[in-house]
């Protein structure tokens, strides 16, 4: 049977014309996506230009009378010629001499990349135009190019391609969903192009399918469960997040004495009872070489600041009080004003006196693990809640404002220790120290040594600056000690004395305590502060990644006009050899980029998940509505067409009645072949004599001489024949076929 080729309507022509710009745009996009990472704008521009030209040439050649081999040979010449020219020109340095380096670059790019893209696309287009089967090759190449750009995304590696994931995060959208949506759009695009390229008539219903597909894709995108991003720890090779940091257990195992729980310091009362539930407690010595480094938090700094000490002291808690055996949190009012014992739920001010030696440093902290209290660079003046940039990665996020010391330590020399506004009791509180006489003895000896060293530079009678004394103390400890986390000085009444007057092997807690005790013996108000100390060298721009190994305790002294100043011991000898693999710099930076995402916080952190749920439900609703609406509409149309003979005016009975008969046949799976005449169709089905009668009536009514009173205008005749046809259909088609046909919404489209 010969397929009839119907006259294309305006709709067909418009749709057909649409194919070219859509195809060109898709190619330029695909080549841009692929070429962009390699050569930037120049490559994208060259490839895009060559793509447009190539499509144009391919289409033009395809429409000419050139035979395929000749056309292909021509395109090959178009490709090989410039390529040869490029090779020759670059090999013999012809181009640089003629055009200079920039001209050479462009010429080489145009000849090489441009020529290849042009020839490739011209070939594809030519083949697709001449042989419809090659349309698939063209589309597959296009889809493959676009897909290759996101190929690294497979296996849930959400960070690739970086430009896309960065862009989507900056809009607060999961890249997974963006990629899914991109895939859906790409599929729709390719399907659309395939539909447009079809030689057949473009049915409106075919293009209607695309929005329905898009709605379905949206639905899937919002309903798909597997799109959650993987744990960053896992992706970074650092073990699962939320896992308790193993330092407690490992430390205990290292001691072979689990009952000690908090390690060596628990004996001298340094440990807090609740600390077993707070893994990243800086008071516990880090597990050292045995534990893998894990990021604890990302500190983002908004202000430029370089700490004069070379370390960022991130203060979390302070231990100003001496309880007889160790430093503990104080009960005295005003001793904890520069730390917060809870996370801020609103902007909270910390009462720190302003100082000319300090300047503001603002920023934010995003915690990667559960943490008991907030920390900030010393000294914090304000805390405020901050939107969690990514709840799947960060436990919580807050912003801080600190007043950080920026002058070098020389500037502290003239400052007296303590504060004149303090009452004597508070001053005494900051000077409490063990009674052990050895401390005083050592302190005096250090002071004497210092005086002896500076004898020629000191004006006799003038008191030594407190800072100088303090430095002398920490220098003494640092020079004489050996740093190790293995020596815990556990099981003795005073571990600090055991450290200081024993083998001088210990770690931060010992040095901090020893410093504070000695300072206090010298009359310098001081305290132990805990938190994290991060080297300035590790700062990358405004990003500081705090690792679990950075947990630290350090001594601080109070100077009038400067406030609490950290002054740390620098151990001369480090016995612990760090064998742990340093975390990947790149991944840490990616983590910083994640934390940098800003979430506006008017009040409580809004739960945005409802948006997805809303979109999901809307998409579901829309999809269901569209489907139900379309099906319902088709059902109505079908019912109307079937019942129309009951209502139609006599002159249109011939048309309407026969249409009802054809619908019934179509439902039963019987349709006229295109090009077959109505009579031939009826003759083909001798088992349906009613159809022949109906066909005769129909033709008589539509092609015959119009006359009233003829049977083709008699409703009774029509309904009678239709009933007969229904009855005959029942005998020739199975029940399921008829039921299936009844549910089929496409009947009106298939009826011919």
């Amino acid at each position: 049977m010969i397929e009839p080729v119907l006259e294309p309507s305006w709709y067909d022509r418009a749709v057909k014309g649409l194919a070219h710009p859509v195809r060109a745009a898709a190619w330029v996009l695909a080549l841009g996506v692929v070429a962009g990472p390699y050569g930037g704008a120049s490559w994208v521009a060259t490839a895009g230009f060559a793509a447009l030209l190539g499509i144009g040439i391919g289409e033009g050649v395809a429409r000419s009378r050139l035979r395929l081999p000749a056309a292909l040979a021509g395109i090959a010449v178009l490709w090989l010629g410039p390529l040869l020219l490029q090779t020759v020109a670059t090999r013999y340095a012809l181009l640089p001499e003629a055009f200079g380096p920039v001209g050479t670059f462009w010429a080489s790019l145009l000849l090489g990349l441009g020529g290849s893209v042009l020839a490739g696309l011209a070939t594809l287009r030519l083949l697709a135009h001449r042989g419809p089967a090659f349309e698939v090759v063209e589309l597959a190449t296009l889809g493959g190019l676009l897909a290759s750009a996101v190929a690294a995304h497979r296996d849930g590696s959400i960070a690739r391609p970086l430009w896309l994931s960065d862009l989507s995060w900056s809009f607060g959208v999961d890249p997974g969903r963006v990629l899914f949506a991109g895939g859906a759009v790409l599929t729709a695009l390719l399907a659309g192009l395939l539909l447009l390229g079809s030689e057949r008539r473009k049915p409106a219903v075919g293009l209607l399918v695309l929005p329905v597909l898009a709605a379905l894709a949206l639905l899937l995108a919002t309903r798909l469960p597997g799109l959650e991003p993987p744990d960053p720890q896992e992706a970074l090779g650092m073990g699962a997040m939320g896992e308790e940091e193993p330092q407690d257990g490992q430390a205990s195992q290292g001691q072979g004495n689990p009952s000690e729980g908090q390690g060596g310091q628990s004996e001298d009362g340094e440990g807090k009872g609740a600390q077993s539930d707070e893994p990243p407690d800086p008071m516990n010595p880090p597990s050292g070489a045995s534990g893998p480094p894990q990021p604890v938090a990302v500190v983002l700094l908004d202000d430029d600041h370089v700490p004069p000490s070379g370390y960022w002291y991130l203060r979390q808690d302070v231990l100003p009080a001496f309880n007889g055996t160790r430093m503990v949190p104080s009960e005295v009012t005003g001793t904890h004003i520069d730390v917060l014992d809870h996370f801020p739920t609103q902007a909270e001010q910390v009462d720190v006196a302003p100082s000319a030696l300090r300047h503001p440093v603002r920023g934010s902290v995003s915690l990667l693990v559960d943490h008991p209290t907030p920390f900030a660079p010393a000294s914090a003046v304000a805390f405020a809640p901050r939107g969690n940039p990514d709840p799947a990665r960060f436990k919580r996020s807050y912003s801080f404002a600190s007043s950080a010391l920026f002058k070098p330590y020389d500037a502290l020399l003239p400052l007296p220790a303590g504060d004149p506004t303090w009452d004597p009791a508070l001053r005494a509180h900051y000077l409490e120290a063990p009674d052990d006489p050895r401390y005083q003895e050592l302190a005096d000896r250090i002071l004497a040594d210092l005086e002896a060293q500076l004898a020629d530079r000191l004006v006799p009678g003038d008191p030594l600056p407190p800072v100088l004394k303090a430095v002398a103390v920490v220098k003494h400890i640092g020079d004489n000690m050996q740093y190790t986390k293995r020596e815990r000085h556990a099981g003795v009444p005073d571990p600090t004395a055991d450290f200081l007057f024993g083998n001088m092997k210990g770690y931060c807690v010992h040095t901090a305590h020893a410093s504070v005790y000695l300072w206090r013996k010298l009359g310098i108000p001081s305290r132990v502060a805990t938190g994290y100390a991060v080297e300035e060298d590790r700062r990358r721009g405004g990003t500081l990644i705090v690792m679990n190994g950075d947990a630290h305790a350090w001594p601080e002294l109070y100077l009038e006009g400067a406030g609490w100043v950290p002054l740390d011991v620098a151990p001369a000898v480090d016995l612990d050899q760090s064998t742990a693999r340093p975390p990947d710099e790149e991944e840490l930076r990616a983590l910083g980029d994640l934390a940098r995402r800003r979430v506006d916080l008017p009040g409580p952190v809004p739960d945005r998940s409802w948006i997805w749920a809303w979109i999901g439900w809307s998409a579901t609703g829309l999809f269901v509505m569209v489907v139900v609406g379309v099906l319902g509409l088709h059902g109505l149309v079908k019912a109307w067409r079937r019942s129309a003979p009951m209502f139609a005016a006599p002159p249109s009975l011939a048309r309407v009645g026969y249409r009802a008969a054809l619908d019934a046949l179509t439902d039963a799976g019987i349709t006229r072949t295109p090009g077959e005449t109505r009579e031939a169709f009826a003759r083909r089905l001798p088992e349906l004599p009613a159809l022949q009668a109906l066909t005769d009536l129909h033709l008589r009514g539509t092609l015959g001489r119009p006359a009233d009173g003829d049977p083709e205008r008699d409703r009774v005749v029509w309904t009678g024949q239709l009933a007969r046809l229904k009855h005959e259909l029942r005998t020739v088609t199975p029940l399921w076929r008829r039921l299936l046909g009844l549910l089929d919404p496409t009947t009106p489209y298939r009826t011919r």
Partner: protein
Amino acid sequence: MNEEHDQSRHITHELAPPITTLDGAKDVIERLRSRLVRSVVGRDEVIDLVITALLADGHVLLEDFPGSGKTTLAKALGDCIVDDKPDDEIVTIRRIQFTPDLLPGDVTGTTIFDPNTNRFFFRPGPIFAHIVLADEINRTSPKVQSALLEAMAEKQTTVDNRTRQLDAFFFVIATQNPLDLAGTFPLPSAQLDRFLFKIRMTHISRDAELALLKSLDSVTRGAGDAIPRVTRTEVLDARKVVKEQVHIAPAIHEALVDIADATRTTDRALQGVSTRALVLMLPALQARALAKGRDFVSSDDIAVLAPYVFAHRLELAPGSGSAEDVVKECCARALEGLSRKTLKR
């Protein structure tokens, strides 16, 4: 060559009332068909076409191998017709076997000197018959062909500068052999245009062939004698009735024009069908519609007749395959449009 006919039965038919209704015309067709079907076995389709051409006042070119029943058909047709004007010099059927040495006068007739009366008188050729069987028309020279073709187009013939009218019934069945072309003069397309139908006959079916062989024993000629014949006047009346009373809807006209347009625009034909072809086709469509018991022309008529009417009028492009296929392809689009149109308002 000539076959004198028994004229003893004419008397009864002379009094028959003139045919004015479609039913009467249909009756004529039925009688012709019934008789022919009995006489020529297995050629129902060709018989229908021949009757259609007869009622449409067109001529038929049969293309077939020798011995496939062409002469039988023509003779049977002649046997069906009763010449109710026996007084004129026109007989019912004549057969002309065309040969290369035939002269126009052998076809049209010639002026002969009668020594008895010392006068010239015209002796009519075989063309002066109601039904002329022109056998192997392509074997004769173009001169003879054109003599016949003038008669076919104008229903008149000119001998010695004197034009003589043929009978209004004049119906030519020409034959040619499609294969044995050596020494032939193929008809140019302008002359093929004179034929309403070109019918390519195929071998009859096995069953029909068996039936034919079997029936040779029994009386074949007389088989249809029980069925009344048809008079010349009845056929002429029926032609008139068909032309006037079978309805042609405007949609049919449109479909015909569409088909003609398609044959003119298709790449497979160098020259499409002429407007005359369309004009000639209308009565053929009407005749077939009536033969099928309809008083209106339907798309089926076009689908069936178009290849017979249009195929020999096309000038095919090289390598286009058979003309029938081209015509069918050209029809398909127009007929599909017609079928869809009838379902629309």
